[in-house]
């Protein structure tokens, strides 16, 4: 078997859903032993292409060839039998079962009709060893970090019917730096074994770290397939956006402009705010027209600050004053009334109400503030929805579409719209740009700066340091559930990183 032999070829794939053409004559090919990145903005058609490859959706036209043989993929199960395995964005496994059970689920080795637990653990151990990971496979999966859970998920996929192709859909979106490195090692190892890997991510850095080739999609159409080595980073971004990347520079300019505005008043002040086990007492002050960044690793206490300030959790020490008035009760509703808004970290679980329409999602928090009886008229609802769809450029045929039909970036904008509709003084954004494309990222950053110009104050939580550095006036660095340092907005990425890791 020569190394560059073609493993999978998809030709002329088209797929339409009511109202949208998700894929339009797309070509895709994967070679043996390569890591192939699939890039594109939200709604470019990446997910649909994956769904076609894995049999979740059936293409309207086009053909699939696996090792030069024509195939029809009927169902996800069928695709696994053919050797195409997928690890999805959200790890969907049973956290209360052991690692071994998760890996061998449905294929447990049996002896005399009973499950042979020893053999099962042996096999599971081997499967993990193949990825160079040695853990106690008899412990519940939930005891391990998300990164390990993902590895288990990969091990499971490989265990099923000797996978030839592994599809990783945004595997790094909830991993930290070290965990990502671990995953990349595993990916390179599998690649050397001759497995073809399809890698979907929004992190451009990562693509250049591991990918051999890059296929770019835009609006359901193929832009092209390129060798990673010969494609400059800026050009990749330009290809994904289909335009010049001047937006990001515009963001930096806005920040310079507004950091010169004078005379600020304190909006929100927290003194000794803390909750046992999640955040050690800390002080925080947000001024008018200010964007304060919070940098920190996953689990450093950055989300905990947001949850305490917004009243998701009740603090057990300290006090919060909002515009000079002491906050007495902590609940989301009280926070909304006090003019605080929170775009939560997990937009699927905590943000979007999928089966409600876009209009209803936008007015949800505003209506909650008005209560049960003061019902917004449908005319008013439509006005508000139209206004924010336009303002945030949410791509949808109509405000009456269900929110779940929107792409990731548009869902994020939808949640922003919900909170902007309540006209908050303080906007807390927890990872507002996670998992969304470069263009939408720039739009959201610009929006944050615009809000600051209008006198609002933003708390900007992000794990992307360049983004924090670009947008924020001050940066608070969190480490081990406490405030490690407060840095000026022009701090270097290197400095922030070292503070986060604790070497400074």
């Amino acid at each position, binding site marked *: 078997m020569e190394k560059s032999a073609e493993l999978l070829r998809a030709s002329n794939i088209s797929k339409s859903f009511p109202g949208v053409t998700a894929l339009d004559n797309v070509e895709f090919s994967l070679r043996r032993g390569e890591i192939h990145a699939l890039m594109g903005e939200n709604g470019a058609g990446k997910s649909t292409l994956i769904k076609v490859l894995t049999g979740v959706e059936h293409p309207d036209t086009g053909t699939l060839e696996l090792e030069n043989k024509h195939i029809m993929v009927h169902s996800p199960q069928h695709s696994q039998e053919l050797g195409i395995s997928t690890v999805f964005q959200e790890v969907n496994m049973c956290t209360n079962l052991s690692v071994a059970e998760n890996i061998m689920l449905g294929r447990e080795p049996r002896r005399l009709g009973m499950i042979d637990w020893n053999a099962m653990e042996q096999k599971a151990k081997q499967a993990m060893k193949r990825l160079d990971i040695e853990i106690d496979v008899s412990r519940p999966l939930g005891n391990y970090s998300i990164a390990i859970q993902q590895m288990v998920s990969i091990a499971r996929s490989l265990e099923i019917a000797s996978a030839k192709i592994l599809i990783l859909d945004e595997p790094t979106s909830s991993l930290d730096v070290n965990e990502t490195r671990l995953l990349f090692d595993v990916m390179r190892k599998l690649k050397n074994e001759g497995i073809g890997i399809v890698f979907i991510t929004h992190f451009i850095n990562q693509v250049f770290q591991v990918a051999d080739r890059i296929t770019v999609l835009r609006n359901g159409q193929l832009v092209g397939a390129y060798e990673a080595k010969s494609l400059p980073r800026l050009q990749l971004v330009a290809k994904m956006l289909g335009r010049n990347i001047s937006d990001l520079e515009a963001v930096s300019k806005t920040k310079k402009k507004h950091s010169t505005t004078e005379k600020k008043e304190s909006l929100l002040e927290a003194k000794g705010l803390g909750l046992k086990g999640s955040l050690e007492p800390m002080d925080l002050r947000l001024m008018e027209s200010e964007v304060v960044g919070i940098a920190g690793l996953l689990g450093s206490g950055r989300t905990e600050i947001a949850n305490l300030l917004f009243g998701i959790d009740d603090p057990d020490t300290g006090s919060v004053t909002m515009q000079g008035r002491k906050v007495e009760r902590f*609940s*989301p*509703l009280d926070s909304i009334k006090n003019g605080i808004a929170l775009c939560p970290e997990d937009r699927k679980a905590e943000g*979007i*109400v999928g089966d*409600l329409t876009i209009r209803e999602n936008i007015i949800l928090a505003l209506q909650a503030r008005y209560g*049960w009886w003061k019902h917004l008229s449908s005319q008013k609802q439509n006005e508000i929805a139209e206004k924010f769809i336009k303002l945030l450029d949410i791509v949808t*045929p109509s405000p009456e579409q269900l929110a779940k039909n929107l792409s990731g970036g548009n869902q994020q904008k939808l949640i922003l719209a*919900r909170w902007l509709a309540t006209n908050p003084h303080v906007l807390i954004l927890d990872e507002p740009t996670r998992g969304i494309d470069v263009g939408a990222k720039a739009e959201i950053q610009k929006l944050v700066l615009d809000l600051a110009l209008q006198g609002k104050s933003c708390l900007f939580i992000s794990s992307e340091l360049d983004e924090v550095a670009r947008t924020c006036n001050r940066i608070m660095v969190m480490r081990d559930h406490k405030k490690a340092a407060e840095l000026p907005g022009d701090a270097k990425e290197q400095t922030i990183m070292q503070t986060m890791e604790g070497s400074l």
Partner: protein
Amino acid sequence: MNKTSLLDRIRGNRLTLPLAALVLILVFDAFYAPSFFKIRIQDGHLYGNLIDVLNNGAPLALVALGMTLVIATGGVDLSVGAVIAISAAMGAVLINPALGNELISNAILTRDATNTPLPIILLATLAAGSLCGFWNGFLVSRARIQPIVATLILMVAGRGIAQLITNGQIMTIYYTPYFWFGNGYILGLPVSIYIVAAVFLLAWVLVRKTSIGMFIESVGINAKASFYSGISEKNVKLLAYTFCGFCAAVAGLILSSYVHSADGNNNGLNYELDAILAVVMGGTLMTGGRFSLLASVIGAMVIWTFALTVYTLGVPANALLAAKAVLVMIVILLYSDVAKRLTGRLFRRKGA
């Protein structure tokens, strides 16, 4: 513009399936039991099977209304049958001149009179049911007990409570004004139909003219996101269960009035299951979310049209449950994903 064909719109409408089921049964009746459609006028009142469907189906339609809101929040109320019995018992005891005490002469007991004013009887009956609903809502929203378990408590205990109220007796009611709710007529139509219409209107205004409906759906679809958006999930659930209890109380009023008695063991027996079936037929998912009040009421009508059809055909009463099982099976199959995919394919082929 996003143009959807008429066919797709009909298919997408949640009233389509329950209406289709209703029409199907009626068409069947047209062939095999034409007497079903006969309506005659007697003393200025309308009589006939169709009227019976509306009259007999009224309690179920009421319970289905309340059940719709509860199911839309992602819960279920198994206690509605018991709540019917409790409120029926409440009404009967208050009408009784000795308030359930047996040691009085038959002459006094069977008198067409009551010591309690009728408005008080009504208020107490409705309050008893609403209180039961409130209790369920409290268990679900504040004590965080799973709905199926929380309402199971009252489902079992409720019939005991009803018997406690009536001293373990089946209590016969002799007070004629009370009979009006289950047997009276206004403009030729049974009173119960007007009661259903009134409660339906109340529910509709409550959910569609305030934001409660949207909050109920939001909580049913994603409780966590609703909490993050400032919606009080607890109060939404409390309201839904309380309203469900209220609806069961109205149903209990009509039922006890219709049969002139309160029986702790048999009033509203199996109503919880029929109500759930009606709601499911109305297209509301058991996991919560989007709901339609009208579709649930039509669902209740389907169940009663079916039951009366079976009676009209001469099937013995004890075989009714078996016949109903067939209906349930058909409904569940029709609403399954497989069936939806099949009809979807059928429609697409026709469109192409």
